[in-house]
């Protein structure tokens, strides 16, 4: 066996062991349920959960729900990108405002804002707007903080180059500061989007409205155990794909820097 093959084999062994362990755990759960050690009315058979995927996708109109959740995430994402970057730029440009407000923005990031959902329900009604606004508010802080961080980390030499070309403040911003801060700003947007997705699905579940979050709630209320578990797996899959995609994009952007 060549060194390259050995290296490839060694690289694939741990993920395969991880995957095999997951399959073994599911197989063990299946056996324990079948012999009666785990109550099948609390934990459904993994094989039934797997089989119910098709039913849930077809009967529960998962595609439509997925598109609704995606649209809510997109709307919140656009809002938090536009507002978050604008506020971040403003705080960076006016140092006194930055000193006064940056700690508040950081505190906002640690506040459980999603708990204000009943308040948003009163203000915006039981609609997509409530979900979008909550996701927007919840994801705003990281975008603002990372925009400030990115703009502040612009290298002095680049700023001096801009000055030597006698760039106007607007040119200095668009040609020097903004391109330099873009990878860090994207990190903030990615974090904001993750918070937005978490909040969109969470609030959909809580107020029983909208896309994938509502699907889990409805299936649980119907006591459709395999369906509930399948829907949860589907949401996990969607968030993993979303997380991995944005992570790839971030790596690509950072590498381009």
């Amino acid at each position: 066996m060549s060194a390259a093959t050995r290296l490839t084999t060694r690289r694939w062994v741990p993920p395969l062991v991880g995957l095999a362990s997951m399959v073994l755990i599911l197989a063990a759960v299946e056996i324990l349920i079948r012999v009666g050690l785990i109550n099948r009315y609390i934990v459904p058979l993994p094989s039934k959960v797997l089989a119910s995927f098709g039913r849930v996708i077809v009967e529960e109109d998962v595609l439509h729900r997925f598109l609704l959740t995606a649209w809510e995430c997109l709307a919140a994402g656009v809002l938090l990108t536009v507002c978050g970057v604008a506020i971040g730029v403003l705080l960076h440009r006016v140092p006194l405002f930055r000193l006064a407000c940056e700690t508040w923005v950081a505190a906002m990031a640690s506040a459980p804002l999603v708990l204000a959902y009943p308040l948003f329900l009163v203000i915006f009604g039981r609609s997509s707007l409530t979900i979008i606004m909550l996701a927007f508010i919840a994801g705003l802080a990281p975008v603002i903080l990372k925009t400030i961080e990115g703009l502040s980390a612009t290298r002095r030499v680049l700023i001096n180059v801009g000055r030597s070309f006698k760039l106007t403040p607007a040119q200095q911003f668009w040609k020097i500061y903004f391109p330099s801060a873009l990878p860090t700003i994207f990190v903030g947007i990615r974090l904001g989007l993750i918070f937005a997705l978490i909040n969109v699905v969470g609030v959909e579940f809580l107020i029983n409205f909208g896309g994938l979050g509502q699907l889990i709630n409805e299936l649980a209320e119907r006591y459709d155990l395999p369906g509930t578990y399948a829907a949860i797996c589907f949401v996990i899959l969607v968030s993993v794909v979303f997380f991995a995609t944005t992570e790839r994009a971030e790596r690509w952007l950072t590498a381009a820097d």
Partner: protein
Amino acid sequence: MADSGRLTRARDAMPWLTPVALLRVAIVLAVLVIWQLMAISGWFYSDVVPALPVIAVALAKLLSSGDFYWNLWVTIDEIGIGLLIGGLSGLATGLVIGANTFLAKAFEPYLYYLGPTPKIIFFPVMIMWFGVGAGAKVAMGAVSCFFPIALNVAAGMRQIDQVLIRVGQSFRANPWQMAIKIYLPAMRHPIINGLRLGLGVAVIGTLLAETKMSNRGIGFLVIQAYSMFDMPRMYAILIVLFVVAIGANALVAHFGGLDQIKQK
């Protein structure tokens, strides 16, 4: 000149009187004035945007009611137990994964990708497993805080200075002594950071579960105020809740020495 002299003397007497502090006070006052103007303008429903004195009265009533403190204690209790269970299991998982490269490669991706999923979707499962009582809320808190703590501890474990580990080994420390005397002190900051993040998500997980299905706790009070359309009370509860959550987060960061790291 005389004015600037007076300003300097005033600043010496009141060191907090900085431009930043003044701006902060101005922003807070502006927000309060705008809110009050909105409340009395008649453009908004008075129930949705209540006047400031109404909110202040609701806040005073809330803080002077024994019922509020009982419910607060229920929530703190659930979050505390959840944090203990999720924190200890996260710590153990992080130590095992952080110490073993093979296990990290095999299982860390699952933790890494499951970490940012919305945990509230597990609530129906938690109700089936632990019932509709406090157990399901504790489980929500535990599940929520497990992931950030495990990931932070694993990352912290990998960042330990190898010199410290070799010192421990040269003293022939056993695994327990290595954990207590080398690993845990060297990983204090990642652990505290994980705990801070874990506390934040445990608070959210537990309280959201309380709003969904409970008859006690702060989450229940929020949803009760919503169903009775008692908006001033809801504002009062949310204000107290945000202050407590932000304060707890800042306290953990302060006592864990995280603010000192940021200053460096």
